[in-house]
């Protein structure tokens, strides 16, 4: 069978982070080819290289035997590559119609935009892509997330590409829309496209894809025909080992005391419009998980708990006393810590050295009348960096020079130094290598063992199932259920997260 895409030894480094490490694989012409891997395995980087948005450090790509010039979106388009990006790439203030045509609105006399032809073309696209429920004159920003994603996909397909790249196209789509996507993929294949399909959901791989390639740590692990491999084999190839061993064991003597007073109590907390109601308590020594699909109100909950957004209703109590958190500064003061979602933009000031990052929340403790005791500062930061096993050169080196895992450990060091009792972790292991993940899990254990309380959200359900004492699952802005012990299995969490536990809506069947 002829090869449509040949990726050969691609390497790409972002500072100290290696996004691609000599990845090579091939995609047959006319296939729907799944690309699988953990967050940070390099899938999106490959998509961006193929689309011309990222210039790799070395390696090359052949499309139908022709070398792909790197770093030029237009060159990629000229070779027939069309992409539906994970971060939707439409312009919010243009109408849906103009977005669908961008940047090739039909012209009159070679200069001026032909409005009539534009309207006709948009109507055509809407017809052929089954988008009749979207009015083309609406501004793109007025659409909700699933519709935005459908536009992103439809636009890529409407260009009749030879190569179609779909980067997590189903992340915001539900059952009916996934059926829609299936028809789109069929349509595109029928007109001769080769498709790369990125997803985290095995059922979709089985439904759409004939072959699959697995990436791990920026390298190609293997390519298989979909019907020759089991889900378990795929999963262990993705993580690189059998799943159980990734999670350290916690000594039973340190389990939370069942009747200890709650360290963090949240009552009927709401942040409109996303978070409607959350009520739970976390006791000392407890790792309390938060599960659910993305965008169900988790972020709003964390923001409210750390004083970033103010709640529209409800109460927060810390150590048995009610608090109002007007700013993160208040939150730090009452003893809360947050490892935020984006470590590069929220967790660290990358330009500053580790010392200046780590000591920031405790500057008041390290200073008198505004004068910093720099000897003490250096000692304390050095000690805590050693504790989280980050090299001492981090003291004076800008954080941008460290890999994602080390950066996350510097963020943790910052909060351990505040000696707070409550740790809020928002997806702390995203894009972190396996070894560092384990170190982070160990630190979580030790923090809990010492009497702290942890609220832990992760996009990886397995982490929740293996690490948490209890898991609250959030669905459409409400805590649908709090699972305990045996119930808090991957399967149990997922079932409620998909709404199949409480509602009859058919999403898709989770992996058996």
């Amino acid at each position: 069978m002829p090869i449509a895409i040949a990726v050969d030894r691609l390497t790409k480094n972002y500072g100290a982070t290696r996004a691609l490490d000599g990845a090579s694989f091939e995609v047959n012409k006319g296939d729907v080819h799944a690309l699988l891997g953990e967050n940070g395995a390099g899938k999106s980087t490959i998509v961006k290289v193929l689309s011309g948005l990222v210039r790799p450090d070395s390696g090359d790509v052949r499309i139908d035997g022709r070398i792909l010039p790197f770093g030029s979106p237009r060159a990629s388009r000229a070779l027939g590559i069309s992409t539906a990006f994970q971060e939707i790439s439409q312009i919010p203030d243009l109408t849906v119609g103009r977005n669908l045509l961008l940047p090739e609105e039909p012209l009159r006399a070679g200069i001026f935009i032909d409005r009539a032809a534009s309207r006709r073309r948009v109507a055509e696209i809407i017809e052929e892509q089954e988008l009749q429920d979207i009015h083309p004159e609406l501004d793109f920003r007025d659409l909700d997330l699933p519709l935005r994603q459908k536009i992103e996909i439809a636009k890529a397909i409407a260009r009749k590409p030879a190569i179609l790249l779909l980067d997590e196209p189903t992340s915001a789509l539900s059952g009916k829309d996934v059926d829609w996507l299936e028809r789109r993929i069929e349509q595109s294949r029928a007109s001769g496209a080769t498709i790369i399909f990125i997803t985290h959901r095995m059922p979709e791989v089985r439904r759409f894809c004939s072959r699959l390639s697995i990436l791990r740590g920026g390298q190609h692990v293997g390519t298989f025909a979909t019907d020759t491999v089991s889900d378990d084999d795929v999963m262990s190839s993705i993580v690189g080992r059998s799943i159980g061993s990734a999670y350290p064991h916690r000594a039973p003597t340190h389990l939370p005391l069942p009747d200890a007073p709650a360290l963090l109590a949240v009552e009927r907390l709401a942040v409109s419009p996303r978070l409607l109601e959350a009520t739970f308590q976390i006791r000392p020594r407890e790792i309390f998980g938060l599960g659910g699909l993305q965008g169900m109100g988790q972020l709003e909950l964390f923001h409210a708990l750390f004083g970033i957004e103010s709640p529209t209703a409800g109460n927060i109590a810390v150590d048995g006393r009610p608090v109002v958190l007007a700013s993160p500064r208040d939150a730090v003061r009452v003893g809360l810590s947050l490892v935020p979602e984006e470590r590069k933009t929220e967790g660290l000031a990358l330009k500053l050295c580790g010392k200046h990052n780590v000591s920031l929340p405790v500057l008041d403790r390290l200073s008198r009348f505004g004068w910093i005791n720099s000897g003490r500062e250096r000692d304390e930061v050095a000690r805590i960096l050693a504790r989280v096993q980050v090299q001492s050169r981090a003291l004076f080196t800008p954080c941008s020079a460290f890999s994602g895992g080390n950066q996350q450990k510097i963020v943790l060091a910052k909060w351990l130094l505040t000696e707070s009792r409550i740790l809020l972790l928002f997806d702390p292991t995203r894009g972190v290598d396996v070894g560092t993940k384990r170190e982070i899990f160990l630190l979580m254990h030790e923090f809990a063992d010492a009497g702290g309380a942890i609220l832990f959200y992760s996009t990886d359900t397995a982490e929740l199932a293996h690490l948490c004492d209890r898991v609250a699952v959030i669905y459409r802005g409400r805590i649908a259920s709090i699972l305990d012990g045996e119930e808090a299995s991957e399967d149990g969490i997922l079932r409620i997260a998909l709404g199949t536990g409480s509602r009859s809506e058919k999403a898709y069947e989770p992996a058996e």
Partner: protein
Amino acid sequence: MSVGALGKPERPTLLPLILRRHQGLIMAAAFFLAIFTLLQLSMSSSFGYYDVSSTLGSCATIALAAMGQSLVVIVKGLDLSAAAVISLVNVTLVVSMQHTQAPAFVWVLLGMGVGAIIGAFNGVLVAYMRLQPIVVTLASMFICQGVTLLVMKEPGGSVPPEFSSMFVGDLIPNLVPMPLVVLVGAVLFWGLIRQTRFGTNLFAVGGDEEAARANGINTSAVKFFTYVLAGVFFGFAGVFLTAQTGSGDPLIGPPLLLPIFVAVVLGGTPLSGGKGGLVGCIFGALTLILTTNVLLVMNISTYYSTIVEGILLILAVLGSSISQQSPLRRQLRFLRDRVRSREILRARGASLNRRPLRVYDPSQPIIPIAKSTSFRDWLRPHEETLRFSAPSYLALAVVLIVTATAFGSRFEFSAYLNSLLVLTSFLAVLALGQGSVILSGGLDLSVPWMITLAGVVLTGLTLGSNEAAFWALPLVISIGVLIGFVNGAIVVVLGVSPIVVTLAMNGVLQGAALIFSNGSPIGFSPPIFRWLMTGALAGLTPILWFLAAFVVFATLLLSRTTFGRRLYAVGSNQTSARYAGVPVGATVIGAYVVSSVCSCLVGIMLSGFSGQAFNGMGDAFLLPSIAVVVVGGTLIGGGRGHYFGMLGGALLLTAIATLLSASLLPDAVRQMIFGSIVLASVVLLKERRTS
């Protein structure tokens, strides 16, 4: 998985949608009608043809320039060189017309060509070299001003009356004035642009540059052509101004910068980019001119005009952001929560942190990061500082050698050093202020008139008396604290961009200084300040002893205090700073206070140096204040920089200025050289790209 209630997508009703899309323009027109009605009511006679014609005539320059500026703003840029281009075109045309005769269209093309060249210069640096628009256009603004002064030193010259009447006469007498034709022409031109793909791409690039690139738009080319096109608009504005005034004036441009921005924002183009249009600019400019007329009718001194412009600018920016997630409302909610949180914290008396939780043993000795004595180890924490500061000192050494060589045997090193340091002291003080603001991620454009106001107020109050200085000095410093606080508070609380706030504040301070001095400052500097700047103490000019103390103070303030540390954190990444519990608002306000106080000190020093104060004495310090910070290795946009480097920058620039003033090169060259040095240093000190 879909989130929230989806239901059946409704068929949109398009009218509200269209209204919202043109909200800026509608608001601009409404604002104009309101001020027009106000003017009609306060005037005895009604608005006749002559009034219409002259109003359009006086607003057209600003309207045209604002249209160009709007283009740049739509692609999320900023062009500070707009006003300087106008003066340059003005003097170029007037001087050429003295020597040659040519049909009018040649002059129009010449003017637009000059604009296009400067636009292309800005465009290359912004779009292809990816430098920040503020720095680039600030530098090109000063280069243009220098060239302007080279072309024409003093106001003068004239243009043929036919040329003037082509633009300010009538197309059809008593019915259609030419300025109207010009403006309608510009609107039609914009209409044509909107009909091209470039017209769509403009908004795409401004709305989301990454997305535009992902869609295959050549974003660099779009940005480049936007700057060129803006330059053409500025050039045409210069042509119109020349026709309107009928003569040349090298200094006519700079005061237009503030009104241009006012017209852009009043015209409904938000500074956040990706939205707006050019038509509103005409209403914006009209509103501005009519407001000035209202002041005239109401018999209010023209000294107030810059104050009104400044306040209008802030109000317009606030007005345009009201429909979005209003920062004001967010701040009010924050204040409410804050009051409640303080009450609760006080009632609790204790925080959890009284019982610290340690996952490490604080008594355990640190893995010794050996207090090594080797030079390399000592160097390591300071490596970055040195890397970015060293170039300015190296350049300084070169300039000193050149100076010594140029002066030959007449060179007396100690006298030279003394005077160099005295002259450096102004910039060394300003560097701390401007540097703090830049480190926090902002920019302070109110430096010039803060300096002037301080000088004018001090000399006006003391009238040359030492005794009065005892209370006047603290008073002047308090004014500085207040102004800085207001600057910072508007930036923080209302969320207005620092450039807008401080540009407006500069206008307000200018008005205040003019009103206070009634146009011409009186009094003299108290003898104590004259002694400070020109006397002698232990063999040196007294200010040098203070300068030494100031340098130590500034270095420690930025590197060893919680304020300094937080300043870097905020400038480097505001979100991560906030999430780390840094009081971001207080820190930013602090930076502006430091800046205003430093400007006040310089105002006092300057008036001491020359014995008295004069209006506009601070104008020459805006670019140098930014230049020394940038040359010293500080990153515009915040987070990187050191006072040691800024001091090097101050010494270097002063040494260059001294060398130039000793040579026979005109003063204009100095502005050009400073502008070029700023550009050179942002290019050379750019961080290696990591992506």
